[in-house]
């Protein structure tokens, strides 16, 4: 083959060249066949993904209304910048930072954080940027591939009412929550306490999706296929609560700079009219872009503002327990309204139990009126010595004290109404005696309740002996306008008779007109049935209690107030309850000196508590 004749050369060579050309053609044909026919299923979706962007459309979160239709919690638009780290070119960092009006290092750090969430999915880079920054970024999106924008919303509180513990707040879902739920998206805010948490599934609504045509720079070019694939978001359901905005606003004002819990309840329905735990926190500072230093401050505050005292605090009810003791004693047949006991100034049983009431003969009415301890020590002594402890415990629990009331708020805590099981587990089997039970009679010792429980119990005195289910939400209004009522149950407490109830109520009416209550609490033309109490506190100033319902003969409101480290209930708790009752029943406050007294009242501080120990 070394030397080739020219003519044959042409013939041979042309074959070789033809083969080369045909081979090249066949390879290319095979290649496009492979790409377009065999791998079509691979590339077709790729090109779809390229040119289509699915955007999640957040639904408007449901609103929260008070009982009269006033909006307590609404939504306010906030502007968010998002980033898809994989598509973002770090060389654009200076441009992005200057548009955001932020330091490059801050932006860079935040981008790194988003990379840890997901490299390929859009994460929120900065939320709540100003509208100016937002529109600057929007105009420059074409030179910032991977950067996006969103209009979201944050919670806004249009009235002065914060009801921070009742409404709760939203926080970004954690990684775990995101992984457990197919509904929650990364970076999405979900209810973290209060109603926002309990009714999360109603409030959140259903997210929608929107398909948008985009070009290689990520610019959107309008809806895909005229939006035929889009799923419209469904707005969250609204909550219609039982709160009364005006009452709540006043309650929050009166509880400022105090510590304690307050629950006002509609005695016939169990609807919460007002619920305050002091100190409060400001939910506006947790809405939208969270104020981190504020949040850390809340968590390290020695007065624990995030703690909902109104449903979680557990304190001995003190003398506010006496009306319920009386009803139990009457039912058990140990006492009668007429029966009298001589009070020498103390009760003797193994040791002396002191009584601040004057010596003399006491019937039930007088015992309640002057809050005589002797009468109730005697009563508890009889209950204990006749082996009726468990029966007694059951009767008291019927009022809503002790076990959970299952209010529609998170972190409610049960109280303690001891029975033999409880005593055995605390002291050991049969290692306790009557002496350990005596103080229960006057609401001290192991018995402990929350303000909510006292409010529910007070409601049952007000409504003729019915156990109400305390609740925050009266109705849920679906986005289509359909209203579901919660209709909580009301149960008659069978063993309470109207006659017995009248004796106790009369005793409370008289008690209210005694001493401090009379001065701080009495409202002209409104009869109140109330009872003060003081929970002994070994760690500092006593906690003051007050329970009341009014008007005494036609109750509209039942209330329980607990004031921590504030001494006598009559001075600390009574005026607050009284002002709330006055405002609720008359629409205004006509006793400015009482209002001023409350506003200037300060509980013992933590330092003082510490010094006393």
């Amino acid at each position, binding site marked *: 083959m070394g030397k080739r004749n*020219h003519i044959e050369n042409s013939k041979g060579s042309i074959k070789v060249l033809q083969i080369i*050309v045909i081979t090249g053609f066949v390879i290319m044909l095979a290649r496009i066949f492979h*790409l377009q*026919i065999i791998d079509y299923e691979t590339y077709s979706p*790729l*090109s*779809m993904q390229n*040119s289509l962007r699915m955007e999640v459309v957040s639904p408007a979160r449901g609103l929260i209304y008070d009982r009269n239709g006033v909006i307590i919690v609404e939504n306010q638009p906030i502007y968010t910048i998002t980033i898809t780290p994989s*598509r973002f070119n770090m060389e654009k960092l200076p441009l992005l930072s200057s548009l955001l009006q932020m330091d490059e290092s801050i932006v860079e750090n935040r981008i790194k954080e988003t990379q840890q969430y997901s490299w390929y999915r859009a994460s929120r880079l900065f939320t709540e940027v100003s509208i100016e920054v937002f529109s600057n970024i929007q105009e420059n999106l074409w030179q910032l591939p991977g950067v996006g924008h969103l209009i979201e919303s944050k919670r806004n509180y249009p009235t002065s009412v914060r009801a921070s513990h009742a409404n709760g707040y939203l926080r970004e879902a954690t990684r775990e929550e995101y992984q457990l739920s197919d509904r929650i998206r990364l970076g999405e805010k979900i209810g973290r306490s209060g109603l926002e948490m309990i009714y999360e599934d109603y409030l959140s609504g259903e997210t929608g999706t929107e398909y948008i045509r985009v070009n290689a720079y990520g610019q959107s070019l309008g809806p895909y296929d005229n939006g035929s694939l889009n799923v419209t978001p469904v707005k969250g359901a609204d909550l219609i609560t039982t709160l009364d905005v005006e009452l709540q606003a006043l309650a929050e004002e009166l509880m400022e700079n105090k510590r304690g819990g307050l629950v006002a309840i509609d005695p016939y329905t169990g609807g919460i009219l007002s619920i305050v735990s002091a100190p409060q926190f400001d939910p506006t500072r947790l809405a939208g872009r969270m104020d981190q230093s504020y949040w850390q401050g809340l968590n390290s505050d020695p007065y624990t503002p995030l703690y909902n005292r109104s449903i979680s605090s557990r304190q001995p009810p003190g003398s506010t327990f006496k009306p319920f003791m009386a009803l139990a004693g009457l039912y058990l047949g140990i006492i009668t309204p007429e029966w009298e006991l001589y009070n020498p100034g103390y009760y003797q049983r193994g040791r002396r139990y002191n009584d601040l009431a004057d010596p003399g003969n006491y019937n039930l009415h007088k015992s309640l009126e002057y809050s005589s301890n002797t009468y109730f020590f005697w009563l508890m002594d009889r209950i204990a010595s006749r082996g009726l402890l468990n029966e007694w415990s059951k009767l008291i629990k019927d009022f809503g004290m002790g076990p959970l009331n299952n209010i529609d708020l998170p972190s409610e805590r049960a109280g303690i109404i001891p029975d033999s099981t409880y005593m055995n587990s605390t002291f050991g089997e049969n290692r306790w005696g009557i002496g350990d039970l005596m103080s229960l009679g006057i609401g001290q010792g192991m018995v402990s309740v929350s303000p909510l429980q006292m409010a529910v119990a007070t409601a049952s005195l007000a409504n003729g002996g019915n156990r109400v289910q305390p609740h925050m939400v009266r109705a849920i209004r679906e986005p289509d306008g359909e209203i579901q009522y919660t209709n909580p149950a009301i149960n008659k407490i069978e063993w309470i008779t109207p006659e017995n109830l009248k004796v106790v109520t009369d005793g409370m009416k008289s008690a209210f007109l005694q001493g401090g209550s009379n001065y701080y609490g009495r409202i002209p033309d409104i009869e109140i049935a109330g009872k003060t109490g003081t929970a002994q506190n070994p760690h500092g100033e006593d906690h003051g209690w007050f329970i009341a319902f009014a008007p005494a003969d036609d109750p509209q409101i039942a209330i329980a107030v607990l004031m921590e480290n504030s001494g006598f209930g009559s001075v600390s708790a009574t005026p607050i309850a009284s002002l709330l009752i006055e405002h609720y029943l008359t629409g205004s406050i006509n006793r400015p000196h009482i209002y001023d007294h409350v506003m200037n009242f300060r509980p013992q501080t933590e330092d003082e508590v510490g010094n006393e120990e």
Partner: protein
Amino acid sequence: MLQDKREFRWSVILIWIALFSFGLTAIYSATQGEVSQFLPAYILDNFYKQAVWIGISTMMLVAIQFIPPRTFQEGAYIFYLICIILMILTLFFGVEVSGSKSWLRIGPLNLQTGEITKIATILAAASYLTSRRDVTAENLKPALMTVLIFAIPIILLLLQNEAGVAIVYIGILPVVLFWSGLPYGISAFMVSPAVIGYFTVLDWKLGVIATIVMAIVIFLLQKRVWLTITSIAFGFLVIIGTEVALHQVLQPHQRARVESFANPTLDPLGAGWNVLQAKTAIGSGGLQGKGFMEGTQTQLRFLPEQWTDFIFCVVGEEFGFIGASILLILFALLFLLLLSMAATHKHPFAQIVIVSVTFLYFIHFLVNIGSATALFPIIGIPLPFISYGGSAFLTNTILLAICLNLDFNKRSLSIYR
């Protein structure tokens, strides 16, 4: 001009018209569709500029038919000399466009001198080889001279930073020499570095296999031990050279650019982006394509240079496998027609010119579509008659016109042999 007009290769003209129509359609879609809003203004004119160039080229094609065929052979050296001077001038006075200095402004014309020099080089090499005895294994001097004729423009192109065009010259050279009698074995030896280099980029082990296979082929063709040994030695030099270049000389991003055709997912947003988008465009076209001006990859600006280097993606996406394979068939027909013209011609000058032109088109075809379909690393050269580009279209048309002229006048030319 005594021949019957029916002997003119009208079929070639028909294919030429079909190809540039295809091209104009694709350029129109690539620049005038929805995508136009994302393109700079000067790109929007490309369609109209191309139409004007097609008009000019058509006139050239007709005019060339009236030139006596001998002129091409006789004037080849002078033309070659002029072109080389123009290229040198370009090097000093040229206009720089996106990193390469390949444009020379002559009056109102912007000329890509490297394109015109293709014509000159082919004619000069053909002219030279025609005047010599055949190349043989014993007499390689004409072969070396031919290499020199090619080497000058190649060096100038490399200096202009036009490596893509240089590759085309390098590709034609073995074909020209092979046609002129260079033994099969030595021809295979000339091609082997490209083959071995290609496989080495994929995987050095494949490079070794390619070296061994090529050595066996060369031995079977030539039965010369020294040639076989040299080919093995060369093969390993290529492998080592390629590996060193990839891992030591090139920066990681440059290396990624070379390797990304084989594995675009290594760096899907960097070097692999173009490869991935090009494959996606073609692949998502499916059998029937998305329709004229309906390609999302094309219209939403996912393709780079879609009016030139990536024009095949536009065809693939919008006209599907049917459209793309029609285009391939048109090219194959053109190549085979040209080769048959060469085969039936009796004059070696005409043969060498036609074969060179065929392979010039073929290499463009292979490299351009190979780049778009990720068979090869992305080498930016246009698809003949399809891609936007006036100088290239004119050059390719002139070359075609010369082939047609030589073919039409084959009887009058053959006397001179």
